[in-house]
Every structure is written in C-alpha cells, then in structure tokens.
C-alpha cells in the first residue's frame, strides 16, 4: 500500500491527527502528574521559607541542604507561628498564606488594585524571625526569594532562587557564598528603610563591613546582581508598613 503523501488533503489530515495525538498525550500526562508536582512545589516553598530563617541541614560551609521533604511539613507547622497578609496597609492573619503567588499580587499593585502580600512570623531557639517574600527580574527571567529579619531590621538569613539565570554566573545567587553575605546587613540603617546593594569593587570581598548595606557582586553576573538589589529594594518598600510596625526603636 502506498500513500500519496504529497496531497494537500493528506497533509492536513496528518497534521490534525498529529496534533490530536500529541496534544492528548501531553494533556493526559500533565493531569496525571499535576498533584505530585503541586505537592513538590508546596514543599519547596516551605523549605525555602525555613531556609531563610536558618532552619536547614547544611553540613559544611558551601552547600545548601534543605529540610528533607518527608519532614518539612511538620517542621514548618511547628516553627512558623503566624501567616499573614499585608493588604492596603492592614495586616490580617491568613492560613496558608505561603501559597499566595507573589508575582500576581505585585502585578495587581502595578495596576493599582488591592493586593494581598503574604508574610510569615516564625520562632526558632527563642529568636523571632519576620520573613518577607521577594520577587524580581534577573537577566533572563524571574528571580525570587525570602528574607528573614529581626526586630532591629538586621537580616538573619536570605534565600534566593531563579528561573533561568546563566549556570556558573547569575545562577550562583543561590549559592552559599553569595547568600551568606547578606546575613548581618541592616535594611534600616539610621531608621531609614532601604535595600541591600550588590556592588562591584567595594573593597570588601569577604563582606566584613556589615554597616554599609552592600555585598560583593558575582563576577560576570552584573545584571542578575542588579536584579537582586532591585528586588530587595522593592520588597522592603512593599512591606514597609509591616516592617515599621515591628521595628523596635
């Protein structure tokens, strides 16, 4: 049997069948795996928030090890004592606020609509942590993260992640040597709120000066670094009403 594959009618029928077969195959798979993927994403958010408040399984100076997925849910529920949303200057308690998509909320603000910005309060070893999520733009795509501060607006920990920054360059924002530099910096020096700048050549590569609100940039990743600076600045601005309310003078 030979088919004339050059005929237009055949071409169209082939295209239709191909699209239907591939489309349904992918749809079937996506719906079959959806719940598992959602669960993974939920655990990841919990791991990231806990990481920002210094709860992790890091074993040495250079690796990032989260709480394993098997335990993260119960540890998260134990340590995070409050989940809130900041909406129009008001703070309200809200369950499962960590599942809020910050990107959508920030877009609402840009359009001038009322948004619900999630935030979390946790306690670990008698230290209170106030954790705010962050969302911004890197070189190629989105970057995001969490930042934990104490009542004096000193950063206790950060976690950064990215969608598609260049491996080996911008992707290094999620490595310890970059994230750890932020710990100890203040987002409110002299009572004035501001961000932390990622700068080149501030003569402080080991980040010993914690009062300058600056950390050393990653070589070859200027735009990603600027993205991180902007993201922190924006988030501090968004959450200022909340931060102001908890700050001890």
């Amino acid at each position, binding site marked *: 049997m030979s088919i004339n594959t050059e005929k237009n009618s055949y071409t169209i029928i082939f295209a239709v069948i191909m699209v239907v077969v591939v489309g349904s195959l992918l749809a079937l798979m996506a719906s079959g795996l959806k719940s598992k993927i959602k669960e993974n994403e939920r655990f990841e958010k919990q791991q990231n928030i806990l990481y920002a408040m210094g709860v992790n399984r890091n074993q040495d100076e250079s690796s990032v090890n989260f709480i394993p997925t098997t335990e993260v849910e119960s540890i998260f529920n134990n340590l995070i004592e409050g989940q809130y949303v900041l909406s129009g200057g008001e703070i309200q308690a809200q369950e499962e606020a960590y599942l809020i998509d910050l990107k959508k909320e920030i877009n609402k603000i840009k359009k001038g609509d009322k948004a619900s910005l999630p935030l979390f309060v946790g306690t670990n070893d008698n230290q209170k942590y106030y954790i705010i999520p962050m969302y911004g733009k890197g070189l190629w795509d989105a970057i995001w993260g969490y930042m934990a501060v104490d009542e004096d607006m000193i950063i206790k920990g950060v976690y950064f992640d990215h969608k598609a920054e260049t491996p080996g*360059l911008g992707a290094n924002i999620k490595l310890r040597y970059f994230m750890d530099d932020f710990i100890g910096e203040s987002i409110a020096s002299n009572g004035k709120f501001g961000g932390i700048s990622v700068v080149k050549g501030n003569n402080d590569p080991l980040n010993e000066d914690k009062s300058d609100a600056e950390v050393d940039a990653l070589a070859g990743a200027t735009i990603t670094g600027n993205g991180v600076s902007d993201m922190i600045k924006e988030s501090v601005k968004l959450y200022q009403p909340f931060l102001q309310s908890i700050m001890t003078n």
Partner: protein
Amino acid sequence: MALLSKKDTNLILDPLADNNPITIQVLGICSALAITAELKASVVMSISVLFVMGIGNVVISLLRNLIPSKIRIIVQLIVIAALVIIVDQVLKAFAYELSKTLSVFVGLIITNCIIMGRFEAFALGNGPWRSFLDGIGNAFGYAVILIMVGFLRELLGSGTLFGVPVLGDPIAKTGLYAFGYENNGFMIIPPAALIVVGVLIWIQRAQNKSLIEEA
C-alpha cells in the same frame, strides 16, 4: 551474529571524532557556549540530549514514510517539543531538585540544531534501529565536546569540578593558591567557550589533516 555490524558501529563511533557534530559539522554550538561554565550542567545537558535524540530519531524514522514532506520540519519540531515536555514533567514529579537544574535547558534542547539536523539528514531515510544508533552516536559526540569544554572552563575558571574545590581554597590561599595561582575569571564567561571550542577544533584538525576543508 554480532549485535552491531561494522557499518552500525561506525554510526556510533564516527560522530565521536571524525564527524563530530560540534567540531566538524559545527552544529549545536549555541548550547555548547551557553551552558558549559560548569561540568554538572554539561553532563545534565548531555544526558537530556541523549534521551531526546535517541527516542526522537526512532519516532521520526518510524513515521518517515507517512510524514508529508511539506510539513516535515513542523512535525520534527512537535516530536522534539513533546519529548522535552514529557522529560520535564516526569522530572518535576519524581526528581524535583534535578528538574530545577534542567529547566534552563528545556528551551535549548528544542532549538538544538543537532537534533533537527539528524532527523532531517538521517532518520527520514533510514530504519529505526540504525536511526537509534545514529542518534545515540551523535548525542555522545556532542557530550564528549560539552564535557571537555565544561571540564576546562570549570577547572580554570572556578577551580572546582562538579562544584567541589580541587585546587585548594582561593580565599584561604591553600593548595595551588598558596603559590600565587589565581582563577581565570575569563573562563566562566561565554566568549571563553568559543575560544576553547576553537582550540579543540584546531587540535583535532592538526591531528587529522583530512578534516581540513579546502579554502
């Protein structure tokens, strides 16, 4: 009967050296430049391409007498895209950590010209088994170069391999760094990959003069 005839063996071995997709055919250069700053990324990318290319070549080969030639490029693209999405979804569900490293490369695999090139040049005219061997062979040829470039760039640029420091600690000045050695920051930016690939091409052609094209 031997599992592979001599001709079949050549399908796998040729792309490793004398008909390498990167250094001889100069295909797939974009990903070779973009992601080789780290060895780990190179290896992950190689495995993904191996998978997509092996299966994709077989699928295209099975369909080769049915695909209308007018829309064959689109059909090839659909096959690649579908395979890549399947890989991505399965990893997201069962190997979430790995999927995050991989997500960067998903787009790059779809646009990898080696895959399209092999579909077009080989799978459309050959049976499934030979197409499979050809796909695997070319993916290995791609992997060899990617891993070599990744190895050199990570070692010279960051002093690490797979993220593990191998030359000592640059900040505490131990190991090689105690003798004044410095990491070469140039190696981790994309232009360095171009130069490393260029040097590999040079070495290969100097070894085997028959590979040099007529000017």
